[in-house]
């Protein structure tokens, strides 16, 4: 006997409607709580903070991960250490703007694994780079005066000393 899969309607900020399976939507804790409260309903859930293209990506992620086990407390402590798997890595190969939009949306929708993944991607973009390279990657302006730069460098060195 085929279990009827429930569908859920979501509306992006531009008003575009998306239909997804309920279990996919529930990867978002925000949506899960809303759906639990609302129960059976034909209404679309408006997501004014999420644009269509970003919502598409988010749905793509949630669909791929729909059967993942639920997040537990212990995962909190594994954030730094686990490698990103291939599918996730490909998923994150997007322009910077999109990447940051994904972070904001994952945060808003409360999808912790996606948030961790995207944050880790940004961290990977920073790691190993010199301050100058980091600045160029993210368009950061160096506003230290030469004296201040000296101070910071001195402090860094002092910290690194035993």
């Amino acid at each position, binding site marked *: 006997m085929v279990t009827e899969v429930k569908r859920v309607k979501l509306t992006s900020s531009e008003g575009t409607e998306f239909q997804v399976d309920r279990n996919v939507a529930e990867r978002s804790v925000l949506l899960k709580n809303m759906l639990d409260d609302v129960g059976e309903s034909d209404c679309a859930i408006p997501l004014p903070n999420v644009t269509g293209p970003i919502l598409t990506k988010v749905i793509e992620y949630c669909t791929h991960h729909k059967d993942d086990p639920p997040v537990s407390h212990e995962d909190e402590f594994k954030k730094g250490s686990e490698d990103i798997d291939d599918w996730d890595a490909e998923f994150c190969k997007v322009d910077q703007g999109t990447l940051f939009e994904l972070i904001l949306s994952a945060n808003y929708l409360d999808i912790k694994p996606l948030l961790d993944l995207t944050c880790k991607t940004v961290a990977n973009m920073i790691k190993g780079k*010199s301050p100058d390279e980091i600045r160029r990657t993210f368009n950061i302006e160096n506003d*230290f005066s030469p004296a201040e730069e000296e101070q910071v460098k001195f402090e860094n060195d002092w910290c690194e000393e035993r």
Partner: protein
Amino acid sequence: MISHHKSHKRKSIDSSLNDNFFKKHKPSNRHPLGIKPWGNYYLDKINNNNDDDINNNINSSRESGLGIISCLTDELILEILEILGLLSTKYLLSIAFTSKIFYCFSTFDELWKKIFIIEKCYNNGGNGNWKWKGNWRLTYLKNNNNHIINDDKNDNNIIISEDINNDNDNIISDDDNNNNNIVINIVNNFYSDILYQPILYQSIRMDNQFISKENIDKCSNLSLDEFNNKYAKPNLPVIITDLVTKWPAYNKWSMKSLEKKYGNIKFRAEAINIKLKEYLKYLQKNLDENPLYLFDKKFGEKCQGILDDFWVPNYFAEDFFNVLDNRPDYRWIIIGPSRSGSTFHKDPNSTSAWNAVIEGSKKWIMFPPDICPPGVFTSPDEAEVTAPFSLMEWYLNYYKETQKLKIKPLEGICRAGEIIFVPNGWWHMVINLEDSIAITQNFVGSHNLLNVLQFLRDKPNQISGFSSESWPNREEIYNSFLEKFQQNYPEVLKELGDKLDDKLDDKLDDKLVENKLNNNNNNKPLIWDKVKCDENETQNSFKFGFFVNEEEQ
């Protein structure tokens, strides 16, 4: 004959208490780096006479300082930095160099605290060989020769052997202005509530209004019968004032004396291990909003002679979990600075507890089992509890509300030399008003035996404190305990007889009732069938903030 010292509402608490609460903090509103809270932004805007040029400057300094990352919230930026730091703190030092605002983020002490603790958690709390260096950032950096790099494909963490012979205290000079040893006054026009928060909390006083109410009974000369009739059986708290003063510990123990005797022994502070003498340094000099709390369950075994300095008061002599070979955790030494404490919780497994203050003082606020405190949210079966992590946050936001309730909480201050009885099932929250040393034990006596049995049987997923090696299947605990208990105290269950049936009625099968009736006259252990329990999805181990798994001590 009991004498009651029922405290009248005091108009003003010892001013010394309030002073002690803040003796380590020199409250000032200035963040050493010049960071301001967002509230100031609006004031500054007005003060600039709505000069658009200046205001645009303010807006753009965050943008230029963070680049494209400025589209994220401060919290998200800290998330990223935390992940970055867990890969290697070297990267945090690099990004600190990029701009002043990133410098502010990268030197945020709570960030380094989190990274430090998480890394220790990877190693079951660490080997405890680290030294406190005044703040978390320095502590991290000074305790690692290089930086631990965690993203090697080979998965070999390059862990530095910590130099235990290096005993000269490299504590940074006590320069008030240069407290964190960071470059000061570095930013103008940078507003961040989250980075400013530590300054904000430092200056919050533990107001008189929060501590002046004391309506928990205070007694001395209490007979065992009186205690049982007035407090144990009705399940009400009481503070007993003439007991702890008789313990050798009361006169012998102090921060100094404990350090002298046990300073090199490693203790457990929440999720990490630390030498007592280093913890005491931390206690003296830290600016944490939620200070690390030393809570050690193995102090009896680790510290020679310490158990001779106190005894379990006769009121609390019953200790039925004693029948178990692998009994759950039951006694702790608690040491913590002022401001530290525990948010609202119920003690595990429906046990009752006593908490004796040897030095210092604790403010207690308690709610009866059926009343959920304001600001605390639980799932229907209380498996999940959400409460503000910060104690002062709770006081600021919710205390006033409690005074307007129909059923008000019981409150009191337990001072040095006093001991409080915490009846099973009661919600309680504790904050140290001064740096404190205390001992606490949890126990099962006649007064709460039935509750404990019911808890073990019906909420096995919420059972905590039992080692998972010795007890891989929590559902067996109930049967094992009942069996052992029958062997050791057959009269007790018999005496409770009817009450037992009534109590356990909700979940009892008919078959079991029959069994009980048939077995009534012999002393054979009654093995209750496993009764199906409610479905609990989550496991809630007894934890505050950063407790990971106390079993892994």
